[in-house]
């Protein structure tokens, strides 16, 4: 991969009938970066992300993820990325250990590797007491941390997180971001959508999406300067108000 780019998107578009959900967006993400993909609800973040992770076909445009094409090499992309959806997606009726084993298994990890991963996660996340509990019985904060860990099981190059901290308390959010930093330190690229602007400040680079288009992009510091704002929240509000809604 030249220039260290792990995601390269050019004029990526998704149309549902007459509705342009994603309108010719272009951006690049470098390896090891934490990329904040911001936008209001319904701005098109999730749709854009689904095209990048290979579960939705783009209407037009180009995109390369982890060096593979989103039109023709989706299965190769899937081998190299992790994904944590905004809907909690582990099995409530399986225990923590069974969930880890299952997802490790379908990513093709060996029994020994899976055992090793469980051991590491138990120490890192202090799971001793809950490893054999049903996931459904855990508090939301735990579930989120767990699904993030599961998305990292197969050591992907890039992890896509879709509003990972929705509905969790500030302390858990903080812990969650520590996990994100920890993953980034190990060289994983993180692509995070969120509408918590304070979280966006933790990112190396952010893009702000309004009505399917990327209206601003750059490191948080640069954006604040450009829009003469004290924080990203103000930047976001300025952009959102300037936007002309479709309806």
């Amino acid at each position: 991969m030249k220039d260290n780019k792990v995601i390269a998107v050019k004029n990526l578009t998704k149309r549902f009938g007459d509705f342009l959900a994603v309108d010719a967006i272009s951006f690049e993400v470098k390896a090891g970066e934490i990329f904040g993909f911001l936008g209001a609800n319904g701005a098109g973040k999730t749709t854009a992300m689904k095209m990048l992770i290979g579960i939705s076909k783009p209407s037009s445009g180009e995109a390369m993820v982890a060096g593979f094409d989103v039109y023709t090499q989706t299965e190769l992309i899937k081998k190299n990325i992790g994904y944590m959806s905004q809907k909690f997606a582990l099995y409530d009726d399986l225990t923590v250990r069974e969930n880890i084993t299952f997802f490790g298994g379908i990513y093709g990890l060996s029994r020994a590797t899976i055992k090793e991963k469980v051991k590491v996660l138990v120490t890192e996340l202090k799971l001793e007491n809950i490893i054999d509990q049903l996931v459904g019985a855990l508090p939301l904060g735990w579930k989120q941390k767990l699904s993030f860990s599961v998305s990292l099981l197969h050591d992907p190059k890039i992890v896509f997180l879709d509003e990972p901290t929705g509905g969790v308390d500030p302390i858990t959010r903080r812990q969650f971001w520590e996990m994100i930093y920890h993953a980034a330190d190990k060289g994983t690229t993180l692509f995070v959508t969120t509408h918590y602007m304070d979280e966006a400040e933790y990112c190396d680079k952010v893009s702000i999406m309004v009505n399917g288009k990327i209206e601003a992009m750059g490191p948080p510091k640069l954006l604040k300067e450009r829009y003469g704002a004290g924080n990203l929240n103000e930047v976001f509000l300025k952009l959102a108000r300037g936007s002309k809604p479709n309806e």
Partner: protein
Amino acid sequence: MKTIGYLIQKEFKQIFRNKGMLPIIFILPIVQLLILSNAATYEVKDIKFGYIDVDRSSTSRALIEKFRSSAYFNLLAPYSSYKVAYAGMLQGKVNVIMEIPNNFERQLVNQEKTSLGLTVDAIDGAAAGVETAYIQQIVQEFNQGIALETSVSNKNRSGFAGLITIIPSYWYNSTLDYKTFMVPGILVLLVTMITLFLSGMNIVREKEIGTLEQINVTPIKKSQFIIGKLFPFWIIGLGLLTIGLVLAKLIFDIPLLGSLGTLYFYTAIYILVVLGIGLFISNFTETQQQAMFIAWFFMVIFILMSGLFTPIESMPQWAQVITTFNPIRYFVEVVRMVMLKGAGFSDILPQIWKTLAYAVLVNGLAVLSYKKVN
């Protein structure tokens, strides 16, 4: 192969951990088999039989005695007039009214023919048919008795025509026991229903809770996923067949003349068809509720047109054509043939080929319509 193993392991864990689902899978079929097999019968018993004897002769009394001695008829007190009897029928107190006219005996002796008035409540047409057949049989027997008497006493009249009787010999179900006929059929129902509903709802359930999306972003192959998902239900279907066969033997004493191997071999193919249909349904539905409704729609048509309750031969031509696309039809045929007739592998070969073709077609369509990418 290893990936499929993980998936199958997970499915079985989930099935056996679901306390609401387990009884539905294993207890319900047993209850259904016990209840339906005893309840679903064409036999008409306890026919409420009313009569008006205007003749009041020894012959008319003898005829009524014939009915009284039959196990099928429940003789009511004689009605004074047809009007009263008819009022009784309107109220549902009587199913059949027989009116023996005046001069019944005299006409029979003098002219060797007479008539009887018969009114049958035919709201349930099938039951009315059976009732009429019973009555005709009794009257015929009675008639032969009379004819014999007259031919003996009066040799130059009437030949021996009246003496020809038909002795039916019933094969494969010699006692004409309805349970012998129904139990194998209901067994078919259970295996089909449970596997269709379970497989139809299973993948949709993962859509609903969002785990399917998580699976779709993994590199798992479509075929691996589908095999891993359906295999547990294939096993459960064969398990249900086993439970049903044991019950049929122990409780209903249904014979199993053919080989178990043939039956299992066919069922193994048949369940593939059902699972394919289930998968197909779950591909085109978003919620378990939708899947359930569509599965029911197919089930009802399949069951009613399977020859399970009504013979296919008596359906109109167009309906008979439709039944050739009904997988349950073949399963019903095979189960009855193997269990009751002792049909072997070569006897059910046509059904095997058709079912196999069906399995390939349905599963092909299901796999094609399953999309990891939207």
